[in-house]
Each structure stands twice: as structure tokens, then as C-alpha cells.
């Protein structure tokens, strides 16, 4: 069986959403924050300037379904681990023809048998009484790292339970590196 590999650059470019915005929270642009994992593919956490996560997207070039491995990796980064539920992970297979001519040609020239697997993690907000609880991400635990937590959507923004810092400054501080890499 062919081992899983990183997504080729030409395919990764086609997978990137063109103009993502924060849905249902602030409508501000969301930026992909790359996260280093023990998996061959790449994880990008799309978070708005307020630290609210729209979606986390893992992609690899593989015949297998990586959902179980992604679940484990995400749980290692969540406080508490049960923040990440299996039912919130959704698989999508991208074959090439739906990605445009260059990715299609690239994958076809390499046999076309191995697709790209994408796993989306989307945790929807939960209303408790008058307060909406959302998924936040803290990127201030080192380059390529993230801590996920659920907190009330409040002003001032919720604090990361691990480092006790506000989500707003956290995201802004790493936004430059995320922009440079994307």
C-alpha cells in the first residue's frame, strides 16, 4: 500500500478556500494557521481575529481515511480532549477533475489512483441559556502549535485555560507568520 504523503503544492493551492470569512460570529476574514502534527499531511486552523475557529482542515495524499489519526492528534491539542468528537469530523475525497486542470494533470500523471483526503473538523457553537459557547484557538504555545478550548463568546474575549491569555492578542501575534506561509 502506498504510504500517505503531504499534499503536493499544486493541489494544496486548489484546496485553499479563496476568501474565507468568520461565519455566524464576526464576519471578519479568517486566516489559516498551520499546525505541526505527527502526520504526513498538513493541518490548517481557520480562526478569526477574535480567536473563534471556523473550521480546521487536515489534508494528505493517501489511499486511507485518516480521520481516526486526525481525531487523536486534535484531541491532544484540546482542553479537554472530549472537545473533539468523532461525529464532528467529516471526510472528503478530492480526485483531481474537480480541482482544476493543473491538479488534475498532476494527479493523472502520477497514476491518478491515489486521491487527496481532506478531514474537516467543525465544532458548532452551543447556546447555554443566553450565552453562546464557541470553539477558540490559542496559538501562543510555540510555533506550529495550537490549543483548542470552548468558552463563552464574551467581551473581553475568553482566556486560554492553558496560558490564561486572551484569544484576541494570541491570534494577532501569529497572523503574520500564517500570512507569510500562505
Amino acid at each position: 500500500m502506498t504510504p500517505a504523503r503531504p499534499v503536493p503544492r499544486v493541489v494544496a493551492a486548489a484546496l485553499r478556500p479563496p476568501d474565507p470569512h468568520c461565519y455566524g460570529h464576526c464576519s471578519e476574514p479568517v486566516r489559516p494557521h498551520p499546525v505541526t502534527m505527527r502526520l504526513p499531511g498538513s493541518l490548517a486552523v481557520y480562526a478569526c481575529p477574535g480567536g473563534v475557529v471556523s473550521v480546521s482542515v487536515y489534508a494528505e495524499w493517501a489511499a486511507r481515511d485518516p480521520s481516526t489519526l486526525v481525531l487523536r492528534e486534535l484531541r491532544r491539542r484540546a482542553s479537554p480532549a472530549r472537545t473533539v468528537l468523532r461525529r464532528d469530523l467529516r471526510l472528503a475525497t478530492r480526485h483531481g477533475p474537480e480541482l482544476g486542470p493543473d491538479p488534475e494533470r498532476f494527479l493523472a500523471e502520477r497514476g491518478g489512483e491515489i486521491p487527496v483526503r481532506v478531514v474537516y473538523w467543525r465544532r458548532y457553537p452551543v447556546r447555554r441559556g443566553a450565552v453562546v459557547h464557541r470553539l477558540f484557538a490559542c496559538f501562543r504555545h510555540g510555533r506550529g502549535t495550537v490549543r483548542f478550548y470552548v468558552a463563552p463568546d464574551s467581551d473581553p474575549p475568553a482566556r486560554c485555560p492553558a496560558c490564561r491569555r486572551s484569544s484576541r492578542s494570541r491570534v494577532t501575534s501569529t497572523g503574520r507568520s500564517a500570512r507569510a506561509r500562505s
Partner: protein
Amino acid sequence: MPRRPRPADARPARVSIVLADWCPHCVPLSDVRARRLARQLRVPYRRLDIERRAEVRVADRIVRAHGDWAPDYLIPQVFLEWTDGRVDHLFTGFSEQVARTRQGWTDLFRSAWLRRLRAGGPR
């Protein structure tokens, strides 16, 4: 998308879509385009609505066996069935944005894969 070799006489037999009426990626966007794909391939079109009890069982079965299965799987998912009994997963909606799903369909209709398939060439 179909990549494994298949018998030379195998032909497309049916396009099936798994969808829900409330899903903006599905209706009308993918419903219309999958129907057009079936017309271009001159095969029947099957619509499996996950909100209909009789259809969701078939939908779950085809997604679990051939598609992008998850406990709460993504829709729409589109499949191409062949005369030799094989089923190929063709397309899953893009969770990011409806516009991205629309672009995916546009690219698929312009793809070299579909041109070859319509011409009866290698699949």
C-alpha cells in the same frame, strides 16, 4: 474518481447523488449539475434524499461502501455506477463555501476526465 482499470466493455450505468433539500450545496446547485452529468453520459439519474426514510438507507449504504463515510457525513456526494457493478465516488461538496462547491462542479465539467469519458475513451 475512477482510476482503477476496468473491463473494456464496462459503461457508465447511473449517476446517483446523496443530498438533502435543506443543504445549499445540494439543492439546486449539485442536484442540477449531477442531473446534467447523467444526461451528458446518457444514463439514468438517481436522487437519494437523506431526509426520506426509504432513501436514507440506500444513501448510507452507498456512502459507507464507496464514499466519504463519517457518522455525520458530508453531502452532497455523487457516485457513478458502471455496467460491471462497480461504483465510483465522483464528488463531495466543499465544506468551506457554496461558491467552492460550484467551482468544483465547473472544473469537473471542464475536466479531461469527463471529456475522455464522454468520448468513450480510457477511464
